[in-house]
């Protein structure tokens, strides 16, 4: 696609049922309902073909928007990992202490 680079094709594709699709399909549905309302027609009962068409177009565009979003976050993750790999001295793992070493000895006062 013209909005995604070649390397994005190596990423797993999103499911057909994704959030951006649902939102844009809802937007398309609302657009058709508003169109009906402006023309003094019953919003949901009239022009079902328009509702279905606009929702489907919204769903399709949402799929591609999701692909772009996945690529965006994958790029950020990859750059972050690369940076951590190049600067290991900044990311030293803290040595773990067990609770036995931290906790003070228990001296009961009865």
């Amino acid at each position, binding site marked *: 696609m013209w909005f995604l680079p070649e390397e994005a*094709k*190596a*990423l*797993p*594709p999103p499911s*057909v049922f994704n959030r951006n699709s649902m939102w844009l399909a809802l937007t398309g549905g609302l657009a058709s309902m508003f169109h009906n309302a402006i023309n003094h*027609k019953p919003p949901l009962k*009239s022009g079902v*073909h*328009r509702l*279905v*068409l606009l929702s*489907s*177009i919204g*769903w*399709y565009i949402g*799929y591609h928007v999701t*692909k772009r979003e996945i690529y965006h976050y994958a790029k950020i993750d990859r750059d972050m990992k690369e940076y951590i790999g190049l600067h290991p001295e900044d990311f030293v793992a803290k040595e773990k202490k067990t609770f036995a070493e931290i906790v003070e000895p228990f001296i009961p006062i009865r």
Partner: protein
Amino acid sequence: MTFNRLLSRAALVSKVGSRSIFQSSKRDMTNPNWIRVGLAFGTTAFVWGLLFKQRSADEHEYRVRNGLE
């Protein structure tokens, strides 16, 4: 608004800039424009087909590039 005016029959009757009330009538909403309905549903089916084709192409591309196929 002018787009709707071009589509209404009254514009065919008189090419003058104004419409006369003697030629205009309310839109006939009881007989749907079946061609437009058919085109809309056909385009819908086409768009869904495009979506599923794109999805299967993406899946295939992913498997090929990651050596799973």
